[in-house]
């Protein structure tokens, strides 16, 4: 995950409390989404950014996951994400995100 984004997630978590934060991802690949999710839950696996060794344990969801889809307006979802849902490997992404939540999520 981008070093600057790591800083932003870290400072927002300090400000609002980890229990009040959900991180949403839009990465096109399961692996990339998983790495980003790992960074904000278990810490930066590349040990390059401010979240290296910091286990925030935040709740993480990808925008193609059913939990997110059901929580938002269907029409807006179709307009903003409908096309990408057709293109992405949704099953693979859901599996990867679930695994990250089960392993590292604290909330």
């Amino acid at each position: 995950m981008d070093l600057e984004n790591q800083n932003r997630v870290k400072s927002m978590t300090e400000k609002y409390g980890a229990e009040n934060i959900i991180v949403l991802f839009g990465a096109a690949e399961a692996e990339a989404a998983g790495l980003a999710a790992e960074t904000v839950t278990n810490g930066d696996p590349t040990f390059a950014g401010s979240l290296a060794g910091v286990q925030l344990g935040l709740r993480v969801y990808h925008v193609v996951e059913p939990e997110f889809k059901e929580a938002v307006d269907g029409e807006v979802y179709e307009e903003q994400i409908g096309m990408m849902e057709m293109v992405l490997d949704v099953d693979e992404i859901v599996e990867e995100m679930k695994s990250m939540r089960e392993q590292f999520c604290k909330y």
Partner: protein
Amino acid sequence: MSYPVIKGAGYALIHTPDMIIHNGTTQTTERITNPESEYLKKITDHIRTYEEVINYAPNQVYIGNITPEDLRNYKLPWFDKDVPEANRFGKFGEIMPQDEFICLLKIVDSFDLVKLKKEFINNLKVKMQNHPLFKNDMDQLKEGEEIEEIEKMVKEQHAEALYHEGNLVGCVKKAHDIDLNLTAHILFENLVVKASGMLAFKHLINKNNIDVSDIEYVIECSEEACGDMNQRGGGNFAKAIAESVGAVNATGSDTRGFCAAPTHALIEAAALVKSGIYENVVIVAGGATAKLGMNGKDHVKKEMPILEDVLGAFAILISKNDGVNPVLRTDLVGKHTVGTGSSPQAVITALVTTPLERGGLKITDIDKYSVEMQNPDITKPAGAGDVPEANYKMIGALGVKRNELERKELLNFVKEHGMPGWAPTQGHIPSGVPYLGFAMKDLTEGNINRAMIIGKGSLFLGRMTNLFDGVSIVIERNSGKTEEVGVSQETIKKMIAESMRDFASQLLKE
């Protein structure tokens, strides 16, 4: 309507193994943050030889020796498969080795900032005496320096070291004591842009039988900036490169737009020619050392060679309609505007379907889409997926949503209207333009009638806007008609009648 044409293309790659280690930002950052890292220890075992780089299929596509379609015959991964009879020189340009390129840095150096070791120069003078483009430039290398002098400049005067095969062979000096914009590091990066841009430009001229004095304007579209502390991005790479190739009748300017810049430049060049301001405009871009080995950590982790080991450069000539070469449809241009929005759907609509609608065309009416043609052999192991394929799927999916395509046809669309990616991940280099060389043949002798060139850029990296950017343009087979406005038969009759009358009255007077 008379549209401008794509008149010629030149492409060059430069294998830069030592620059991966010393100038790629992934590696320089690692040396600062984690100097004892396993990655830095392992890196030299993962650098490819020059021969391996030549034999690599995507590189042979880049210089035109095999086609993007040929690449489909090679199963991924590509790095462990050689192209039979691969050649350093190709239809569009060449793959240059690092030592020769270091000499080019000296050849383009107008301020005597590049210092090279005596022995290194002497060896290269012999090696390059047969180079078709530079054999007459060897005198510009001069005598060279003693190694002790160079060591002193690197150790005591903040010069940027130049290495070849692990040995110090020269340096680039800083040009100012305190100006951060004229540090040795920045001057090195800028000289790399100039030298690699010149290389592609020289191939463009050489391979397409162009009289360099016919070129009137040059647009440079890489991602570096040159200037000093009072004008950090003042420019002008374009004119500097034009000078280095002897384009005596040209001026030029730099266009920036992250990875989208080459397509912006293509549209600007087309507009300049279409308007009649200039007849021949070249767009050119050099390569970026910062991006060498960008995904090196992932490549090493997966026991692969570091595949981001080449600089990329290109030069394209846009000219007035010759009735033969593919035309740039200046009326079918797509753009991502400030108000477009950032969802992929909005982006693809703005870049693809909006210009097509203007021409009464469907998504399937474009035979080939040239998107960001990043090589998936590089990006997939780094978790970034297959970039061109993802773009084709998005274009196809939009076609499905617009009922121009059956959903079950999506994968066929990707294959038929797409191409496997072959360009090195040098930011602006993969951006639509790598196909232009092939397009010249496909849209004249081949069976393709229409293609779309799409460039996209991540503007948010510069921290001035959160926006993303993109532009596109349709290119088409030339109809053979070059006249702007046809003259009707009636007008001709009238003109003849008037002349006859004039003639008759003249006779009467006499």
